C-alpha cells in the first residue's frame, strides 16, 4: 500500500471510529481532465532557467497529491461520528501530502519522520500549531475549531509548505496518485462531494446517495484545473 493510501486509511479509521449503524463505504475515482495544468514556474530559480532533459519528456504534473474530497450532507446539520485523529507526516523536505483535510474538532498530528527538526507555524493563525520545534520522530498535535484553509510552513525552509483544509463534515478523504479515494462508514443519505485542489475548492459538486447497505461508487468529474480556484 502506498503512503497516500495508508494516510487515507488512517484518516478514515480515525474519523469513523465511533461508527454508525447502517453505514457503508463510499469510494470512487476522480475523472481527471485530459489536459492537465501546465507546470508551475519554479518556486526558486538559480542563475539559469530550468531546461528539459534531452533524453525523455518531462513527467506530467502530479495533481492528485494536491486533491482532497469531502462529503457534505445536502440538507440540515452535519451528522456523523465524533471527530477522530488526522496523521500528517513530515517526511523530509516536504509533507507526506502537500494537502491534508481534517474535520472540525479532530486532532491533527504532525509527525516528523525526517532527520531534521522543524519549526512549523500556520501562517493564517500562528497559535494553531503549538510553538517549538518538532524534533525528528517527534509529533506536534493540535485541534482545529473552524472550517478554514491553513498554510503550515517552516519559516526556515521556504519550500516546506503544506495546506491543511478543515471542514465541518467528518467524511473526508485524500486521493491517491491514480485519483482513487474511499470514505468508510458513511451513513445513508444524500450528500454532495466537493473537491479541493491546491489552494481552493473546485467549481461544482457531485451528488452522492448513500444506501443503507452496500458500497457506494462515485466517479466525480474534475473540471479543468486551469480555471482559477476559489477558496
Amino acid at each position, binding site marked *: 500500500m502506498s503512503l497516500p493510501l495508508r494516510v487515507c486509511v488512517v484518516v478514515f479509521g480515525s474519523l469513523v471510529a465511533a461508527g454508525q449503524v447502517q453505514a457503508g463505504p463510499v469510494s470512487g475515482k476522480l475523472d481527471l481532465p485530459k489536459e492537465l495544468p501546465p507546470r508551475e514556474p519554479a518556486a*526558486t*530559480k538559480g542563475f539559469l532557467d530550468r*531546461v528539459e*532533459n534531452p*533524453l525523455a519528456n*518531462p*513527467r506530467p504534473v502530479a495533481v492528485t497529491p494536491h486533491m482532497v474530497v469531502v462529503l457534505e450532507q445536502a440538507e440540515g446539520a452535519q451528522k456523523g461520528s465524533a471527530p477522530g485523529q488526522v496523521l500528517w507526516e513530515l517526511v*523530509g523536505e516536504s509533507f507526506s501530502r502537500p494537502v491534508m483535510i481534517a474535520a472540525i474538532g479532530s486532532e491533527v498530528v504532525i509527525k516528523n519522520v525526517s532527520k531534521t527538526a522543524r519549526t512549523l507555524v500556520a501562517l493564517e493563525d500562528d497559535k494553531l500549531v503549538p510553538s517549538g520545534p518538532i524534533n525528528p520522530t517527534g509529533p506536534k498535535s493540535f485541534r482545529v475549531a473552524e472550517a478554514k484553509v491553513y498554510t503550515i510552513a517552516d519559516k526556515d525552509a521556504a519550500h516546506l509548505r503544506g495546506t491543511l483544509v478543515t471542514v465541518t463534515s467528518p467524511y473526508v478523504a485524500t486521493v491517491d496518485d491514480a485519483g482513487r479515494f474511499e470514505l468508510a462508514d458513511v451513513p445513508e443519505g444524500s450528500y454532495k462531494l466537493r473537491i479541493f485542489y491546491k489552494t481552493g475548492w473546485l467549481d461544482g459538486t457531485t451528488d452522492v446517495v448513500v444506501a443503507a447497505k452496500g458500497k457506494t461508487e462515485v466517479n466525480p468529474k474534475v473540471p479543468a484545473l486551469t480555471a482559477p480556484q476559489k477558496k
Partner: protein
Amino acid sequence: MFFSKIWFFLVALAAAVAVAVALLMPRPAARAHVDNEKQRLVVACTVIDILLGDDARNRVDLASAFASKLEIVTALEAASGAASIDEARMKQVRSTGTAVMEEMKGKRKPDFAVLIDRRGRVVARVALDENDFGDVAAGRPLVDDALAGYLRDDLWAHNGTLYLVTAAPVVKRDTQAYAGAIILGHQVTNALAQRLVKSLDVDVGFYLGKDEVAGSKTLAVEATPLVDAIKRIGGGEINQDCLANKPIPITAGKDSYTALVARLPGEVSTRQAYYSVFIKRPAALGFAGTLDAVEQADLAPGSFPWILVGAGFVVMLGVGIAMMFVESDRPLRRLTAEAVRLAKGETERLSEDAHPGKFGSIARSVNIHIDKLGREAKSAKKDMDQLLGPSPEGSLGTIDLLATALPAVRPGGSAPASSPPPSEFKFTNPATQPGLAAPPPRPTPSPRPGTPPPVAPARQAAPPRTPPLGLPTPPPSFASAAPAPSALNLDDDILGGAGDAPELAEEAAGGDYFAQVFEQFVTMKKSCGESTSGLTIEKFTEKLIRNRDDLMAKTGCRDVKFTVYVKDGKAALKATPVKDD
C-alpha cells in the same frame, strides 16, 4: 611705473587664474574618476553575474554527465523499486557515486553529490553527510524539477556554507523512464571568488546575512550597510540588481571601499544571500592628491611642455625686469646722479622735466623745498634788516631806541646830519682781525651791557661784582680773558682803538655804563636844544635794560651796546647787538 604695475597686475592675475585652475581642475576629474569607479563596479558586478551564470551552465552539463552514467542509472533504478532504503543499498550506491565523482578529475569536481530515487528518497550522499540516507528530498524545488525531468541550478545554504547546486534527472535511456535524480554541489570558496575577479581588478565577497561566506580577499567589512542595502532592494528581478542598485560606501578597518551588492538567486535568496563587489575608494583628488598622483613619466620632456613653460617664465620675467629697468631703475639712477650734483653745488635745482613720473614729482618737491628755503632766507634777512636797520652785507645792524622819547645825543659834538651810524657800521670777523683772539666759548650770554662809543670804558672804574639794576654778574674770566665780541669791533670802528675792548667789557659790567650813556644822552639833548625835564637816570636805565633784554631775546645776541647820536636834529639812542664772534 604704470606699465610695471599693469604687468604685475597681469602676472598676479595669471597666477590667480593658474591657482584657481589648479584647484578646480581636479574636481571634475575626481567626479569623473568616481563615476568611472562606480561604472567599473557595475561592470564588474555584471561580469561576475555572467560568470556565475556560465559556471552554472557548466555545472549543469556536469550534472547531466553525472546523471547519464549507466551505473548511476542502474543503481537508482534498483533503489526506486525498493520499498525502503537500507544501509547496504546506501553504501552500494554511495560507492558508485564516489567512483563517478572520481572520474570528474580535471573538470570542476563537485564537493558533494546526492543520489535520489524516483520517489524522491535520498539513496546516498557522497562527500557530505555520507551516513544520512532515506529521507525525502522531494519538496525542494530543485529536486522536484529534477525528478520531473528538468535540468537546473540553485543555491543552497547548509551549515553556514553556501553551495552552488545543480540537479539532473536520471533517465533510463532504453525505456526513457525516470529512475531518479542527482544533485551536485559546489561550495562557494575563496578560490572561486578569486577566480571570478581575477581579471576585474575588484574584490568580491559572498554573504549570508551579515556573515561572510567567502571572498576574494580577507576584508573585515562591516556588513550592516550591505544588509541594509539588500533590504532596500525589495522586489525586482534579481539579475538586474547590478544595474539597478547604487554603490554604497563601506569601511573595512581603516580602508574605505565602494561596494555594490547584488542578491544571489535560488533558495538562499530567502536567507539574505548576496554578493558584494568592492573597489577601494580612491583618495580625494584635490590639488595635493593630483600632485601625489603625478608620475615620473608625466614630467618627461616628451609628455610635458617644459620648453613652453620655461619660455613663458623667461618672457614674463624678462618683461618684468625690463619694465622695472625702464620705469624705475634708470630714472632713479638719473635722479640720484642729479641729486649728487645738487649736493656738490654743481647745480642749484633738479631738472624736473628730465625725470618722468614720480621721480619728476620728487624733483619738483625738492625744488619746491629749495625755493622755500631761499624765500625763508631772504625773508629772514629782510626781517633782520627791518629789525636792525640797513646794514652792509653780513652786518646785524643797529636798532633805534628812544628815538622819539629821548633826545638825540652825540657825545663830543653836535648831531650829524648824515644817516645814523648803523648804516656805517661794519662787522668784522674777529678771526680775521689782527690782534684779536677768538673769544672763549661762553655758556651763557654776557649780561654785561655795551659801552658807549665816545667813552673809553677801559678808563672807567672796574665794574661792580653785582650788576646794578638786576643785571647778572658776568663771569669772572670775562674781564680778563674774554675777547671782544663783534660789538667791540663796531666800537672800534666808531671810537677807534681795538685795544679798548677789554676795558669796555669790564666797565660795561656796572651801572656806570648806563649812567655814562645817560649823561651822554642828556648832554646830547641839551646840545640839540631839547628839554631834559622829567628825564631821570632811573627811568633811563630801566628803559635801557628792558630794551637790552628784549633785543637779546629777539636776536640771540650776547650783549647790546647803546650809542647816542643825533637824528633829525634830536638826540637819539641806538642799540647795537653784540654777537659772540
